[in-house]
């Protein structure tokens, strides 16, 4: 049972990681907590339902559709909710937070309208495939989710540190005005970032659908809140932090249920976060900022 629970924890943690990566990317560049991310993630999951269950197409198309649709949603989010507020005189730094909350409410209601309030089934034969090692049953889905999370993290790290676009992004994150003076097309960089972050949300959505077969319009909120908690735990805007934070949260939740009382699942996970934050207020991988980015 220990190993099975370990795998459960890793699976859950990996999904948290992918959700958190989307948050951390947008926060790293824009210094904005994108409250709409959870709902974009939820839309990704629904795209999976539409493709696999309603249209009966294969799973890889679901990934493509989810990435495209959530990418487009990300583009709209940037164009309508973030860009109009950026760099304007007298706009409170809380304004983008509120406008993304608006986006999240809008998206949740749209999903509610089109898909209904209940759970939608996600039918794919992939979720049945498994192999047995001794007394432990391992599902391919669990491995796939873990691998995708690792790939996304390394891909993102590589992209940020080695590619030109990634460097432009980090420069923009450092200082938008200076980066723009040095010839970085900051507008394009920001749009690109939001789209990539949203597409990652879409991938996470599909993975949740495969792993748990539970897709409903309210799922964005619970996963979104967990994602937020993780980036605070791991250090805001830090890719490795999101990875470690997500795995810690997923493991903590699973093991509390397995060896403690399932009623305390969320409580203990968040208490762990509070404790870590008391010890390291900047998060596990965060660097103590001294007033950088006002």
């Amino acid at each position, binding site marked *: *049972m220990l190993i*099975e*629970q370990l795998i*459960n*924890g890793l*699976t*859950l943690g990996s999904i948290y990681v992918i959700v958190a990566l989307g948050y951390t990317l947008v926060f790293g560049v824009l210094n904005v907590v994108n409250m709409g991310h959870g709902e974009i993630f939820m839309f990704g999951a629904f795209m999976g339902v539409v493709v696999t269950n309603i249209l009966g197409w294969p799973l890889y198309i679901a990934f493509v559709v989810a990435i495209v649709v959530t990418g487009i949603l990300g583009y709209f989010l940037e164009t309508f909710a973030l860009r109009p507020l950026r760099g304007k005189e007298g706009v409170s730094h809380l304004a983008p937070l509120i406008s993304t909350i608006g986006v999240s409410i809008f998206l949740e209601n749209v999903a509610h309208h089109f898909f209904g309030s*209940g*759970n*939608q*089934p996600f*039918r794919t034969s992939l*979720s*049945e495939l498994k192999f047995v090692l001794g007394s432990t*049953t391992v*599902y391919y889905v669990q491995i796939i989710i873990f691998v995708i999370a690792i790939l996304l993290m390394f891909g993102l790290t590589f992209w940020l540190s080695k590619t030109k676009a990634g460097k432009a992004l980090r420069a923009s994150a450092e200082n938008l005005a200076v980066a723009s003076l040095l010839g970085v097309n900051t507008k394009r960089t920001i749009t690109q970032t939001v789209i990539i972050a949203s597409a990652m949300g879409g991938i996470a959505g599909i993975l*949740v659908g495969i*792993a*748990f*077969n*539970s897709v*409903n319009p*309210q*799922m964005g909120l*619970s*996963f979104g809140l967990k994602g937020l908690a993780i980036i605070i735990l791991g250090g805001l805007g830090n890719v490795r932090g999101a990875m470690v934070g997500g795995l810690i949260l997923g493991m903590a*939740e*699973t*093991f509390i*249920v*397995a060896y403690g*009382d*399932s*009623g305390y*699942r*969320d409580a203990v996970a968040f208490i762990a976060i509070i404790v870590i934050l008391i010890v390291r207020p900047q998060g596990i991988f965060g660097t103590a900022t001294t007033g950088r980015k006002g």
Partner: protein
Amino acid sequence: MSKRSKLLFTVLMAFTLVMLAACGNSSTDDTESADSDDVVKAKVGVISYLTGSGASYGEAITNGINLAHKEITELGEVDIELKIEDSAGKQEEALSVAQKLMNSENVDAIIGPTLSTEMQIVGPEADLNGVPILGTSNTAEGIPQLGEYVFRNSIPETLAIPASVQKAIDKYGAKKVAILYGNDDVFTKAGYDTMKQVAEDLDLEVLTTETFQLGQSDYKAQLTKIKSLNPDLVLASALYNEGAVILDQARKMGIDVPFVGGNGFNSPEVIKIAGDAANGLIVATPWFAKKDDEKVKKFVEDYEAAYGMEPDQFAAQAYDGFYVMAEAIKNAGEADRDAIRDALAEIKDFEGVLGNMSFDEEGDIIMEPTVLIIEDDEYVVFE
């Protein structure tokens, strides 16, 4: 000009008078003919949740009552006049329409209100006024105990869950159970309390008690734990939305023992969401539309013809409720509130679409719920 309008007015008034007189005449005729036939004439008030978020319940209930009313009127054994009022699911509105029905409409009996919370306010008031009141959809604890005049024909969870657990034990010889319930919802929590009680009463060994929250998607940690303990039966107090996902994850994980659920788990949606994984779910229900019974078949047919949908539990309970009320009025022999109350209390072995119904001394329903199991993606009677 004014002269002409005056004339017009006079003519109109005269016309109205004639109309009224005609109406009065015809109604007296009715009463006379009724009296001569020795048919009891009574007035029954209905309080229902007709506007607001729970309007679909009220609609099903009034549909059921209207259908029963039509059939009874055609039979002609009793002549009942219906007064349907909307409570909007609110206690204060339920009370004010109840007062209106009892004091100005002078009804002989009341059916409704829809919610248990409404009944908790309306019941004592009806009892005080000596008006028999029959709830058809109130399942909370303590409803019939509100007063001597308060009855209900809806079986509570505390009756439904033991029935299904007992049957499952008889069939599978289960001794060890695992309990799983939603701990942030009053309804599933109450279901859990009943399950715990049942497990104690039947000497079952509870291996573990696990909880979850509304809207959760990952139940694998709980289920892995349950699987490792190897129960003979899983008792799950969940609403169908979470319940279906739990079943799906449990079956994929290899937990293939039967699940016993509460009333919240009883929905065709479970099959829609969980597919084959739903097989082996046992629930108890007062109403089963596919029962092999003439009465049930006819009711389902007539209801579908009249309203274009299959009757649900609320429609069936209201339909039977009205029949029970009509039976009591017939037995009472007069439109007298006390006589109707006594006749209601004496109802015994009444055959309705729900099954065989009687009232106990407190006015609560005595009825065998139908225990169902999902087999081959379909609810069938569990035997």
